[in-house]
């Protein structure tokens, strides 16, 4: 009855390709972890944007200065390069919290996607590490004599770092996308097939790429406005206002492009039901972005003396946009996973019940008959790994062993607790003291009986006559090497 009950408990087998959940409670209220996820992910992405955008701009300005010999471009390139050191370090630490959160609330989805793209996923570590080292190399050799002579070589360092950095978002996006579509998991074999389970990864990459340049553009507007950022006497062709305007333009162009790429991302999102909530939140975000665009246009056309006056409102408005996008994204994630999560939770619950039933059964069995000393059973459990009755396995057969110990079970016990090495052809036997005297004796008696080396037909009763046992003559017949 018990087996069929266990069978029945597990009816829901294979309703979903999603693994069972980890049977431990969440460490905190789910809403709280979701909050951590959304908020810290945005902070992380901000620094990632600055890192990538900064690298692109450095490469761009340095390249242009090499081509055209412009002093201003070279100064700008170096100034931006200096900020990457900070943004890349912050990008890494700020990524830890959202990673932690996603591990906790999307455990089964996230780990599965990771495993399915395993090699490339772990390739993140050397890729990012190499890119970072190259960025340091680029920055700290800027003024070295050698690099001043070989500027193209110097420029190729940052280009290489950039190429590596551009791989990273593909890896992340592919994973984050893959985890949401368990029905596609079976089609995946390796990273590249995972990238194309739907058409969402590339638009999202472009969305992120634009965002990086837009964010870095705004950041630079602030950075060149700092009193510590010297303009006079350093830049030949541009004033502070010129620089600001230039970076405002950059931010504007790439934000404008988001109005095309954004809808493309939205259109390529697979959906399983009407996603009204998400659409509302996204629309709010777009409205804020439109207002920000108007202010940006005003700033670009503002006079030198007042340029930068609307910087704070613009940042604020766009922050709301970004928050809306992040929230909408989360709503999508939750909704698309509902059917799988429902099935997965049911199956996990059923599994846990089956498991508990089996645990209980084992407990009952142990309570009922666990104390009997069955030499044969114990032998199978403990010794049959290496010893058989009449065959050579990893150790000598019992018919051989038993001859030495005719009528002397205690001899076998003594040996088993501290085995020597009699036969060179076998590996040394591990000590079996942990089994305990009682059980060892039962085993020894079984061995002697089964091989016909026991004259007494007594049932296996643990011999406690230590006095005779210790003075066993068998020790003399055991030449230990």
């Amino acid at each position, binding site marked *: 009855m018990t087996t069929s009950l266990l069978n029945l408990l597990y009816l829901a087998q294979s309703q979903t390709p999603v693994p069972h959940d980890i049977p431990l409670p969440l460490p905190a209220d789910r809403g709280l972890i979701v909050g951590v996820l959304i908020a810290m992910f945005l902070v992380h992405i901000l620094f990632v944007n600055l890192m990538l955008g900064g690298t692109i701009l450095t490469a761009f300005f340095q390249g242009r200065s090499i081509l055209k010999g412009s002093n201003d471009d070279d100064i700008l390139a170096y100034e931006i390069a200096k900020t990457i050191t900070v943004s890349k370090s912050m990008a890494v630490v700020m990524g830890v919290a959202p990673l932690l959160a996603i591990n906790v609330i999307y455990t089964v989805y996230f780990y599965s996607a990771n495993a399915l793209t395993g090699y490339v996923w772990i390739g993140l570590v050397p890729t990012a590490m190499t890119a970072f*080292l190259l960025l340091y190399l680029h920055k700290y050799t800027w003024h070295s004599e050698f690099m001043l002579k070989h500027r193209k070589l110097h420029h190729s360092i940052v280009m290489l770092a950039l190429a590596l950095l551009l791989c990273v978002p593909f890896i992340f996006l592919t994973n984050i996308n893959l985890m949401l579509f368990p029905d596609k998991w079976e089609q995946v074999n390796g990273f590249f097939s995972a990238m194309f389970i739907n058409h969402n990864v590339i638009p999202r990459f472009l969305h992120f790429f634009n965002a990086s340049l837009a964010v870095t553009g705004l950041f630079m507007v602030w950075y060149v406005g700092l009193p510590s950022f010297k303009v006079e006497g350093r830049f030949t062709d541009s004033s502070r206002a010129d620089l600001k305007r230039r970076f405002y333009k950059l931010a504007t162009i790439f934000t404008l492009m988001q109005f095309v790429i954004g809808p493309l991302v939205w259109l390529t999102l697979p959906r399983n039901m009407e996603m009204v909530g998400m659409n509302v939140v996204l629309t709010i975000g777009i409205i804020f972005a439109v207002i920000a665009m108007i202010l940006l246009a005003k700033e670009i056309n503002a006079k030198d003396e007042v340029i930068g006056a609307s910087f704070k409102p613009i940042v604020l408005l766009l922050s709301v946009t970004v928050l809306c996008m992040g929230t909408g994204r989360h709503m999508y994630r939750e909704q698309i996973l509902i059917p799988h999560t429902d099935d997965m939770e049911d199956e996990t619950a059923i599994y846990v019940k089956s498991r508990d039933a089996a645990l209980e059964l084992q407990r009952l069995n142990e309570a009922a008959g666990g104390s009997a000393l069955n030499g044969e059973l114990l032998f199978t459990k403990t010794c049959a790994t290496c010893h058989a009755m009449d065959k050579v396995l990893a150790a000598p057969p019992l018919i051989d062993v038993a001859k030495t110990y005719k009528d002397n079970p205690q001899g076998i016990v003594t040996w088993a607790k501290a085995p020597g090495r009699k036969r060179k052809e076998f590996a040394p036997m*591990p*000590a079996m003291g942990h089994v305990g005297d009682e059980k060892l004796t039962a085993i020894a008696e079984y061995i002697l009986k089964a091989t016909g080396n026991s004259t007494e037909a007594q049932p296996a009763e643990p011999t406690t006559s230590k006095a005779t046992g210790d003075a066993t003559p068998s020790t003399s017949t055991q030449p230990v090497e």
Partner: protein
Amino acid sequence: MDFPIFHMDWAGNRMLIAVIAIIHVMINHPMAVGMMPLITLMEYFGFKTGDKRWDTLAKKILFICFIVTTTAGALTGVGIWLSTSLINPYAIGSLIRIFFWAWFTEWIIFVLEVSLILAYYLLWDKMQGSIKSKLNHIRIGLALSISSWGTMAIIVAILGFMMDPGDWTKTPGLITGALNPLYLPQLAFRTPMAMVGAGLFAWFLMIFFVKKDREFRNKAIRFVSIWCICWLPLLFVGAMWYHDRIPQMMQGNIDVAIATQQWANQSNNLLWITWVSAVVVVVTVTIGLLKPNFMPRVALLIPFILIIAMLGQFERVREFIRKPYVIGDYMYANGIRVEDYPLLQSEGILKYATYAHVREITEDNKVLAGQDVFNIACTRCHTTQGVNSVVEKFDNLYGKDKTWDPAAMSAYIKGMHNARPFMPPFPGNDKELDALVAYVLQIKETGETLPGMQSAGIVIAPETVRRSPVRISAGDADASNVTP
């Protein structure tokens, strides 16, 4: 058993974690935890004595540590996490649920640490202006030292927990988990280890940084010698405490006789390396203190290499004594929880596996089923033909050129946890054992390998067992009559 199985069939999965983790520890301990206080002290000393050369040397050493810790250090830290979640998702998933808040706190300290090291290095020249700003700069160094140690102190709690959860299996919770019996001894060992390691690494760097100025070189060597001498006694106390705790703890985990026997080899290695390193370090440090002039360049290198070896050995021991568990007493290294065993051993692992080719084993699909069983039960530690290959292991047992006896192999696997206590018990039932043996025999014959699911993809277990689309709850009495 549940997650898609990432498997590196040539190098073995442990290799990946081991490489990343060892690089991380070797960077983190000497270059961050130990070096930050040493650099701060050096800077302070230069400030006190008014000797600019200390300041220059401190900044140069910091530069190296800054570059390495913010690239390789930080990313291998994340890498440990990513690699363990590929190889043992069930283990890291459980640990994260237990230790979420510990990790979260560690993250906050980590943010602090990174911000501080950025400030400490990048503002070094800017904060030279006045006495006040120099003192503030030294304070940043102090805060940085404390936070570097703080992140380590938290992570060690988690590492200790994985070795021996202490009372946690009885009363689960963050605090009982963190206060596991190995926590303090490990911390007491790692802390001075990091400090001495930093001293020796600083010596090593001085080979390059103080070349010409003989007088200052001697001063600097003496300075670092004193630093090391201060920490060495603590290192011995820590090492002894830790060394003393391990066998005790293992008695709780595995049965005494075998445990001590297995431990003996490792223990001797560790003791041996510790003593040799200790003697060499003490001798060089003493020479450094008394006769810095005599110190040849290579002599600065040897103790550093020794301490790195000791650190590596220490990590190995830590890994070793954890087996057969990945989380002591709770989860075996194959990712299967102790509490799952009764069910799986009677009903079979394939029945509950998410991804498998086969659910019901027949004569025809036996080998394929065996492959699934191997994948689930053995691949966390064994490969087919690569590192720690299962074929090679059986070759050693039964002879490479002989035909192996399937019955003997079954018997071996059934009792493998008794014969070799670092292996978990076989989690499946008898049919699966047969299938596994058939599979091993086949791969011995054909030499075939087993690609992981990261390249081969997954096969969702066939629906044959899905008896009814209707879900029946456990308490449904009528259900027992409709068994097919």
